[in-house]
């Protein structure tokens, strides 16, 4: 059986006020992406975007989002993403931009990258910690990322099942 080939974009939603991230949900991101693709690539882009595009996962706490794009036109759609300047969520306009961190062929590779990336981020945060307690917390988090497999596997399972359903 031939698989529908996709590309998964791992993006980071950057906002000035991190508390507003929690307002986001899958749909708002999808709407924003579709709108910006229609604006930059017109009807043609919008048409390509209407088949095989979806927001696979959104972590409203960290602002991480997985976009699924059809492989044949992911470059075209990707080129529109930098033009997102705001996302409309629950009646509020949230100024933000999408920063693409990784492009992968499966959700799994993206997720592996994400774990590595988050570890790096934690490492970067470590020296900035104000007191020992915070430092300890961050250290613990790093250890969790790299050592404890239980949590990761749970996440992988969740994503893995979504992927299957997508094909």
């Amino acid at each position, binding site marked *: 059986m031939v698989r*529908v080939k996709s590309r998964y974009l791992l993006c980071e939603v950057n906002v000035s006020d991190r508390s507003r991230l929690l307002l986001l949900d899958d749909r708002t991101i999808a709407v924003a992406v579709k709108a910006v693709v229609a604006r930059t690539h017109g009807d043609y882009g919008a*048409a390509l975007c209407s*088949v095989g595009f979806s927001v696979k996962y959104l972590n409203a706490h960290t602002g991480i989002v997985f976009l699924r794009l059809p492989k*044949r036109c992911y470059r075209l759609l990707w080129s529109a993403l930098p033009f997102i300047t705001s996302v409309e969520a629950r009646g509020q306009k949230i100024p933000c931009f999408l920063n693409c961190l990784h492009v992968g062929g499966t959700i799994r590779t993206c997720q592996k990258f994400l774990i590595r990336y988050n570890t790096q981020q934690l490492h970067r945060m470590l020296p900035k910690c104000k007191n020992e307690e915070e430092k300890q917390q961050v250290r613990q988090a790093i250890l969790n990322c790299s050592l404890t497999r239980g949590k990761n596997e749970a996440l992988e399972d969740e994503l893995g099942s979504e992927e299957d359903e997508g094909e």
Partner: protein
Amino acid sequence: MSVFMDLNLSYTADRSALQSMVDTAAHLGFSTVAINYLFEPTAKKKQEIPTPTPINELIDQLPIVQGRSRPIRVLNRLTVVMSDSSHFRPTAPEYRSFDLLAVQPTTEKLFHAACMLYDVDIICISVTEKLPFFFKRAPVNGAVDRGLVFEVSYSTAIRDSTMRRYTIANAVSLMDSCKGKSVILSSAAEKALELRGPYDVTNLGLLFGLSDGDAKEAVTSTCRSVLLHAETRRTASGIIYTMRSCSESSCQQEAPPPSEGEAPAAKRHRPALTE
């Protein structure tokens, strides 16, 4: 390559509009066109299947194809829009008076049936709505093997921006499944200004995800194989051939019984299978 064809010009009761459409098609370089009668049965009341007006009554003078010394060839075609399997009656004698027979299935089940079972020439892809189903490889390949072709029409894409999105999206997902084989591009034009030249249509094919060569075949060779398929379908693989004058008279005689919705019992096993 064979000659350029546009196998879908919408029928309008307005003679002069039809005439100007055929004139324009000839001027643009199409050597063969088909006038399409759309038949859209609804669930509630019974409707008459349209009968084609003979071409010589419809068009006074067949125009000469641009740059050539021969006149354009005009055919009749019937498209049945199906939302239920009872809408297509394989044995209906009315179908026989058309040169080409097309169906436009609106559900996945009907699409599957059309691809695998129905004795038609063309399967139309809806371009006015987002497809409610995906094109599965199996029925698409089945249809290709049986010599059926899929038709994408572009004139709705000229009329409206939303329809244009549906047209491109549906066409692209079709091309993904059939890999550019057995696809024809036609206009479905309702007036002359909605027609486009053959090379323009070829270029439009690129937008729909076809390659250069496939796009050109979609207006030439593939259309030719549709005509051949139609010919074999009408003549039982080329074995029986009935003259037009005979078939017309027999149609008129047979017309009343089928309009009651009854086909001869011996031939009824076919629709039963499709349900």
